[in-house]
């Protein structure tokens, strides 16, 4: 199968993730959409790796997974602490600071 198709899929997943970040209100869901964007990047890396016949892209995919895991640790810690003090994980409610 032509690897270019995987690039289209990656772009589609990335767009779904980006749209989700913009329209969803729950911080956890927003964060999951960011993770979807990172996974779309991984797919693109692996597809390009296959097209060019070098392993760089596959190695980067592993690095991305590790970084995403670290981001989950930090992100969930912050979101959970916000939820515990406000009893809500909505990003619209967090509006103490305005112009």
């Amino acid at each position: 199968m032509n690897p270019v198709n995987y690039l289209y899929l990656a772009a589609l997943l990335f767009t779904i993730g980006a749209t989700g970040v913009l329209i969803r209100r729950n911080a956890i869901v927003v964060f999951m959409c960011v993770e979807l964007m990172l996974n779309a990047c991984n797919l693109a890396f692996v597809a390009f790796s296959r097209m060019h016949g070098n392993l760089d892209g596959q190695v980067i995919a592993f690095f991305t997974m590790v970084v995403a895991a670290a981001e989950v640790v930090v992100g969930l810690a912050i979101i959970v602490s916000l939820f515990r003090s406000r009893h809500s994980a909505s990003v619209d409610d967090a509006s103490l600071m305005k112009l």
Partner: protein
Amino acid sequence: MSATAAVHSLWTTAAAEPIARIDAPKIEYGQLAPMLIVVGAAIVGIAVEAFVPRKSRYYVQMFVSVVALAAAFAAVVALAANGYATTKAGIAAMGAIAVDGPALFLQGTILLTALVGLFTFAERRLDPEVHGNRVDSFAAQAAAVPGSESEKKAVRAGFTTTEVFPLLLFAVAGMLVFPAANDLLTLFVALEVLSLPLYLMCALARRKRLMSQEAAVKYFLLGAFASAFMLFGIALLYGYAGSMSYATIAQVVEGTVPEITPALAATTGNDALLLVGAALVVMGLLFKVGAVPFHMWTPDVYQGAPTPVTGFMAAATKVAAFGALLRILYVVLPGLRWDWRPVMWGVAIVTMLAGAVVAITQTDIKRLLAYSSIAHAGFILAGVIAATPSGISSVLFYLAAYSFVTIGAFAVVTLVRDAGGEATHLSKWAGLGRRSPLVAAVFAVFLLAFAGIPLTSGFSGKFAVFKAAAEGGAAPLVVIGVISSAIAAFFYIRVIVLMFFSEPRPEGPTVAVPSPLTTTAIAVGVAVTVVLGVAPQYFLELAGDAGVFVR
């Protein structure tokens, strides 16, 4: 179809042959010493958290951090003295890290800024003692819900979040790698290593904890969003050039690559990959820099984060991110200059104007400084656009000058306090000059430097940047820069007038007497501001000598 089959055989047939000996990578530990020292000290800091009794952790952490930052700075100076900034500049760690003039200059700046920032982190005399324990700007226990019983217990027990010291060191380690990264993977990993500790530190304020947590969530979600875009840009650039290395990508962009494989011929025929990829990577960097239209996070995060963290973040992150942006634009994409320059023109113009105009309406001193930092990002971008050697050196000089002013100004903000902690509303600063002439005068010096008044570092920096921009053919940008400087001067002067020429309020804030730590931080800020303003020649030459990238 046949091309992909041939590619596939690359790793299916390789396994049938005897596996070739894999050579160990060659690592130049000496040239990487500044980064290795800081990472090592951060790991030691974590061990300290685990094993040292709570009472003495603060002192041990302080000692480890100060020694590490000073040693790393000494290593940078030693490398520069041995010619690694000029004649011996080269690529280290198998192509991952560039050791050259801009990298060493910015690493030195970041380390000094971090050292001064560390002093403000460690300040423990501003808040009154709680249950006989001295407290700093950070929450007693970050996991405890604000106002809950567990938080009161933690405060009573005298807990402090000494984890901020290793977090600071990890952030500094990422910042040291960021402007020196010489392939896209290192760039991405450095970006995350510098960002993740900053997200956490934003959430750790002792007072106004809800605002602090809100700032952290906003910074985290927007930061993760921006870095996902940047990663997709990296994927597209990798797809275009078939390599992560800056030098190879630059060769492919310029069409001077020695060997063209069929796959490379197919992808380089597609300019969309290059243009979209470059745009997304630059966008990720502009987010970190805080340039309009990627600036939305700046005011909220600067306002909500603990003030020492804000000062450190405003100064050091900007230095690191501009270093990485310079390297991307000047080393990877010089062949694309005619495409990125018009875009950056637009970004610089809106950044300068929007930062200066919106700052006028602000009533909170931290938000005001946040918008001022956006305007300054625009001024620095004017130097970046020059695309000449003097453009690089002027940006280096501006960053060094700006970072010390910023960290000093935020250190002064920590001093002006009332019962609720820091009094950041501008109305409370009225008459500060009568109540505490010295603090108000010092803050006035920083504001004049932000405004770019002669005899301060702000003037020398702006002059260098605008001169480079004019020589680089961006004269209209200089005109707009001067206009927005004038707009910005209005609100800086307004704060000075407010401090010195209005009656102090009876219930106004008091000025806390700091320990020698914050005093040192502010004194260093004033000294650098005045020295770089009165006698900038030596430092301009230093930046000029450092202004050549290795490729």
